[in-house]
């Protein structure tokens, strides 16, 4: 029997994100208050969107969405000098990978986690696999705002 999504099931992703920013740039990201996203599945409202799909005891997705400016700034902080789309996408993919690893540790081996995929909001329409209300957790870093959308449903 699998229980409803617990706050700690979401907190692991925010912790992973703050840890990523702190480790990569030396500056933590500030998590803002979470809210319910009434518009349905992950909203791809930023330039770069990294998404992992989850199946098994929980079904759905976790999406990290960030504007180009934020990612450029992260690259700068990391000492990079190339600011191509590819490098921006790499950062989002890396973050999605971090989320994936954290999910695997938290939920156990019984959970199926897809490889991270980059979604372009202008070209792609994403059909969510969970049908409950997703949680949106905005985070602020250096004046930019990124979003984490946790859309998981117990099966």
């Amino acid at each position, binding site marked *: 029997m699998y229980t409803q999504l617990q706050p700690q099931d979401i*907190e692991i992703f925010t912790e992973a994100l703050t840890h990523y920013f702190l480790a990569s740039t030396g500056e933590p990201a500030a998590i*803002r208050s979470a809210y319910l996203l009434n518009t349905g599945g992950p909203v791809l409202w930023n330039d770069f969107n990294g998404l992992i799909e989850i199946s098994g005891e929980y079904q759905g997705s976790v999406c990290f969405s960030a504007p180009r400016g934020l990612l450029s700034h992260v690259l700068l902080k990391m000492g990079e000098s190339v600011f191509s789309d590819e490098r921006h996408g790499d950062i989002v993919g890396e973050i999605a990978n971090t989320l994936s690893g954290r999910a695997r540790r938290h939920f156990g081996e019984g959970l199926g986690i897809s490889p991270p995929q980059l979604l372009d909001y202008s070209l792609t329409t994403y059909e969510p696999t969970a049908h409950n209300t997703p*949680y949106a957790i905005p985070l602020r870093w250096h004046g930019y705002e990124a979003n984490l959308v946790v859309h998981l449903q117990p099966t």
Partner: protein
Amino acid sequence: MKSSPRISLGKYRDLVLLIAVFILIDASVSAINIYISHQIEADASRINAAGQMRASAQQLTKGLLTLEMEFRAGQPTQTSQAQISQARLGFLDAQKVLQGKPGQVAGGSFLEPAALQIQVADELAQIIQVWQPIDREVAPLLLNEPLDMETVGAAVNKAVTRNNRLTQLADDLGQSVEQLAQQKTSSMRSIQMAAIALAFLNFCFIVFKFIVRLSNSDNEAAQARQETERIMGSVREGLFLLTRERTVGNQRSASLDKLFGHQLKPGDNFHQVLSRICTLENAEAAEHYIDVLFNRKIKQALLEQLNPLKEIELINANKQRKGATYVSFEFDQIREDNEVVALLVSIFDVSDEVRLERELASAESRAKGEIDLLLGVLDHNPETVAEFLQSARRNLQLINQELQGVQPALQSYPQLINRIARTLHGLKGEAGTLGCNSITQEIHEFEALLTPLRGRPSIQGDDLIPVAVALSRLLAEIAKVDSIINRIRQHVAGRSNTEGQSDPLWETLQSIEKFALKVADDLNKKVRIETAAPRLNEIPPHIAGILKQAVPQLIRNAIAHGIETPEEREQQGKASTGLVRVEIAHEPNGTLTMTVHDDGRGISASHLRTVLVARNLKTPEEVAEMTDDQVVAMLFEPGFSSLDQAHIHAGRGEGLAVVKDALREIDGRLRITSRVNSHTRFIMQLKPI
């Protein structure tokens, strides 16, 4: 398993027989050796006898010649006679030896060639034939009688003439006897070699049989081991032997590792293993249970019901462990000589069974909850409940918008949490009035989540994640109730035209009365509800809001804080059943007055002062400077309650704050009159709109 010695002998019978034959052959070889040594000794004696015969014959001839010479010279002859006698006796002894007289070693003739035997016998016969005339002539010389020349001369003559012949015959006899001995020795050596060869062959056969048998045993053991390994490798249950030392035995099924999610090694201490995989309580209980099982006087059938390791949940810290979630252990005593030497431990994965049982229990609980919900809301006007649900959903969406829009600042999060708490408390009152108990419970849990946040000096954005989760759950519960209410509404809509005009105020007061009785029942108090209200065809919206939000809060407060328990009331000389009275009246100036009255313990300003200081909300000095009215006004501050611990009906400190907010929205007024141990009366005055 012990086996009897007889069965062991049967198994090794061939080997025992072979070893017996080997020993027999060895004994035979030894006997032959002894026999051969005796034969050699006898043959040596016969060869010596032949030599002695020759020497005696010459000694006799020499003695006779010496006697003749001494006799002729008239010298004494005793020495010569003694020499002759000695030679004669020597010859006769040798003859006896060669003729096989008593004392000689018998046997051996079967190994001697017959021709040689005949030859020896002939030669011996010839010697005797030659010897006898000499012996006849010599014998008189050895008598104690005077010698005469004739007798001596005859004897010398016989001895000298036959000496060469006798010597020659004795030499021949010696050679024949020697040849006979050589032939016999050769035959006996062959027999000896054959016996040794036989013994060696027998020894080789024993070794061969032993190796074959050992090899067969090894093969059987290897096959048995292979079969055991196949069984242990494929059996789904975890199996192993638990030794008296409480360690894991060598033979164990491979599924154990899968069940436990990590390797279980032979020799591991079982109690340490248990304390790693299950709770300390289960591990300790199992330790005592296993101790009892090792007691030979205890029959395991008597203890099966007490097994503490049935359907136990395995510890899964950080969800790192793979394997079963729930397992059952079974223990079987293994007895030898009426002693429990080990326990066979069987472990079963019962995760699916436990999951199904729990799902069934959960489904039953959900079904019961839905029936309770249905029965709860059936007592109320479905339209009223639907309105409440819509309003609740709207309020919660506003909360969600605030969560989305709130800017992180020092005060913005605490203020938002206070607003959420007040909204929830209002909704809880309404939900309780309308019999939506599942929503009341969900809000109560939501409030419990907010309480620690309200006491924190600083709140971060991620502290609000549980708030969003609780909001989602509450909305889901409201949606569930809404779907039930919609069905009831559709059912009611079919017959609404057949019924007369309803009185909405009366219906609302009925709901409030039911709510009050439920609160009293939950708090183990006895309450009588009285209501008095004018008949209204419709309730003005501003009054409806107060009836839904403020009146339930005041009634809840009256019962939770005001009305004493039946025992307390009796001690104070009051009726054990308390009175809560709700009155609605029109004033001549158009003002509507709503009064909630209870005959409980009243509001004690001095008690409130103590609470304010105890909760560190005010210093003793500040409290001392406050008037009683100011102290009572603190009841309307959000988060202040005179109760030490919150329960579902009171203690959050939000009820009167909700009333104050509701009245403020419609510009209403509130008065409180109270006397300790007598009554409390809240009077709300609502101006006409």
